[in-house]
């Protein structure tokens, strides 16, 4: 088997101690292959976001290990981890992290520029990413001038422009209506085939989870079930493409 791009080995996360201890994740193992699309679903508070934070190195597990491309995160230096967050892993979280003083275009260009990509190429790729999420026109506007749904799409554009290996998305469709949400998830679902990006998508919505190769269901901090997409006959396979 190829080395998983992301591997969680029996990770546990507790907050607090003693009688007030909250066991957010109680022992999850999960391996995501390069270019694989995994969805995580489960009731509110079951530990989905906590799991994703650990997967992205934003939080350290109380026990267990997180490996990126076969390397344990705890063995990496702070600089290596920062590099990973910039170049290897893209995030779209429940709450947005757009820089309000930068335009949509500049927000999307940011990870590329931090990675040393020339401004001309960064601009081109940012425009492509914005086009891919259906926001090709308002490049010079500031985040505050967009609707919540549009802001979320800018965040997705930024996450896909900056990453080629792993995208971690936590309810990226939370503020979108159904057709827009469908388009965004279809776009996310096209990334593995187009760019080889692996995706972990956290979502409450079964309609979005169903795009994934594998759907992992959590309950009270652990995985209770995994559904692997049944094989589709080759001739019947739908070509998932970017919305243009």
């Amino acid at each position, binding site marked *: 088997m190829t080395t998983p791009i992301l591997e969680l080995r029996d990770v546990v996360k507790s907050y607090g101690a003693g009688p007030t201890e909250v066991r957010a994740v109680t022992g999850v193992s999960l391996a995501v292959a390069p270019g694989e699309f995994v969805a995580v679903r489960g009731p509110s508070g079951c530990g989905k976001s906590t799991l994703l934070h650990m997967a992205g190195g934003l939080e350290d597990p109380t026990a267990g290990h997180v490996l990126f491309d076969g390397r344990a995160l705890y063995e990496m230096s702070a600089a290596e981890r920062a590099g990973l967050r910039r170049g290897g892993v893209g995030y779209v979280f429940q709450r947005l992290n757009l820089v309000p003083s930068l335009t949509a275009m500049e927000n999307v260009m940011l990870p590329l520029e931090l990675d040393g990509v020339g401004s001309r190429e960064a601009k081109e790729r940012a425009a492509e990413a914005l086009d891919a999420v259906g926001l090709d026109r308002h490049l010079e506007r500031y985040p505050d001038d967009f609707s919540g749904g549009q802001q979320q799409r800018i965040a997705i554009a930024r996450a896909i422009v900056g990453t080629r290996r792993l995208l971690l998305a936590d309810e990226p469709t939370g503020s979108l209506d159904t057709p827009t949400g469908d388009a965004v998830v279809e776009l996310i679902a096209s990334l593995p085939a187009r760019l080889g990006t692996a995706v972990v998508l956290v979502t409450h919505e*079964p309609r979005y989870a*169903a795009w994934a190769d594998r759907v992992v269901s959590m309950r009270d901090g652990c995985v209770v*079930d995994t*559904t692997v*997409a*049944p094989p589709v006959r080759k001739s019947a396979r739908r070509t998932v493409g970017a919305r243009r």
Partner: protein
Amino acid sequence: MSVREGLLALLGDEPVHGYVLKTGFEAATGGVWPLNVGQVYKTLERLERDGLVHARERQGQRQYRITDDGLAALGAWWDAVPDDEPPPRDELMLKVLMAVGQGRDHALDVITKQRSAVMAQLQLRRRGPSTARRRGRDPMVAAMVDDALVVRAEADLRWLDLCEERLTHPDPSEETGRRPVTRPRRGTRGARS
């Protein structure tokens, strides 16, 4: 809807052949309801007997148009809304309700298994083209059929989630009102139904 109502909806002032109605019916229903010609003619015969359609013979072939009584019947059907009685009884719901009577763990097993199966169907639907689309139907009608199937699977999944939530984090006020189940019997799964 019955075939009868479907045919009335397709008929107009212009007389048409039964075969045209058959293909029109199948196209309008997005390929989910294939008819045989015999069924169509039998239904048209009854509609004619009831005075809802008028038939005429042209070059040895019968052609049909809707009558005023037919239009009235059709109007009444468009206006009718679903009624709450009898309550919905679907296989999935009944299976889970029965499982709850057999004990919490069994119920959670059944829920997990059913949920996984419905999710797999939804995954398949996301990946392959719809049967309607493959048969070259009107793309908008085909998309609406797909939407209906996706939304129904979503509803089943949500309901299974809610059942799971009630079983794993029961509301204390609900606990007290619950009648104890008399001697839960667990069948060997698969051996009997």
